[in-house]
């Protein structure tokens, strides 16, 4: 429960940037990855074939609850795939970036770069 509250807080932490950015003449920003932890998950998975829950937790320095809630959101959006296995008796959850997840990250990067370029020119 405590974890879920933490996750909810983290979700609320999304800054009001998207609306403003969308209004700045560029296409709508992907709200799913425009959140620190979800962006971190997608970025970390983009340079690895797969990462376990524990590895992602270590890389992103976050809690179990936060990571699982945000990973589930990405999974629901089809950006990452999740596979649950057993290593001996220990459960092992492995995440992979899907094709649409990689495309979403590439679009997000393009969007950010376009935004910086537009602001510099303006």
């Amino acid at each position, binding site marked *: 429960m405590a974890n879920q509250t933490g996750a909810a807080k983290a979700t609320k932490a999304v*800054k009001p940037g998207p609306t403003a950015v969308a209004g700045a003449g560029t296409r709508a920003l992907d709200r799913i990855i425009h959140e620190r932890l979800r962006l971190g998950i997608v*970025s*970390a998975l983009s*340079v*690895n074939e*797969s*990462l376990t829950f524990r590895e992602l937790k270590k890389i992103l320095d976050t809690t179990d609850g936060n990571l699982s809630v945000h990973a589930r959101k990405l999974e629901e959006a089809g950006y990452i795939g999740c596979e649950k296995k057993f290593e001996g008796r220990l459960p092992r959850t492995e995440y992979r970036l899907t094709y649409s997840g990689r495309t979403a990250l590439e679009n997000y990067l393009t969007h950010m*770069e376009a*935004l910086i370029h537009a*602001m510099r020119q303006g």
Partner: protein
Amino acid sequence: MAAVRPIRSESPEPIGLHVQAMDNLRFIRSTMETAGSFTAVPGRGGVLMGATALFAAFAAHMSANPRAWLKVWMAEALLALAIGLGFSWRKATRNSTPLLSKPFRRFVLALAPSVFAGALLTFVLYRRGLSQLLPAMWLLLYGAGITSGGAFSVRVVPVMGMSFLALGSIATLAPLSLADLLLAIGFGGFHIVFGCVIARRYGG
């Protein structure tokens, strides 16, 4: 009457969208670099390096004189370097990361001094007729380089380095007749075993 103070302090300058965008890009890059340490060392390349080292150990053992023996191992070192670089490039391309990403640069910079020292000492010791010291020196210096390079990588890499250090220590005491066997265990066996672990767990 006391002056009325505003409850809220004056808000700082609003953060520009481009500043926020740059911050996001920096975050993506640093996350990729941290996570990239899982991929910097190519596992499959290690397996291939191990396989060629086994052939080299056999060929070196069959060689007629110290000069031919050294030539075999020098050729193997160059081949291993080419395999290592080739597979690192392959892995970086497949994972869409630049080859000279921070973790890879760190690994190479930590390994390079040991490789340089090894190359120089090989030349000096061979010229002075002290070739019998070469196997232990190669294993120890390679182990030292991999251990320090692995400090920035996943745990399996420094463990591999320490295994080379342990084997190198044994080589300092072992008779010369076992030199090729020890080199086969280190450059062949360790590369294959640890390469398989890295390939299976850390993305190729």
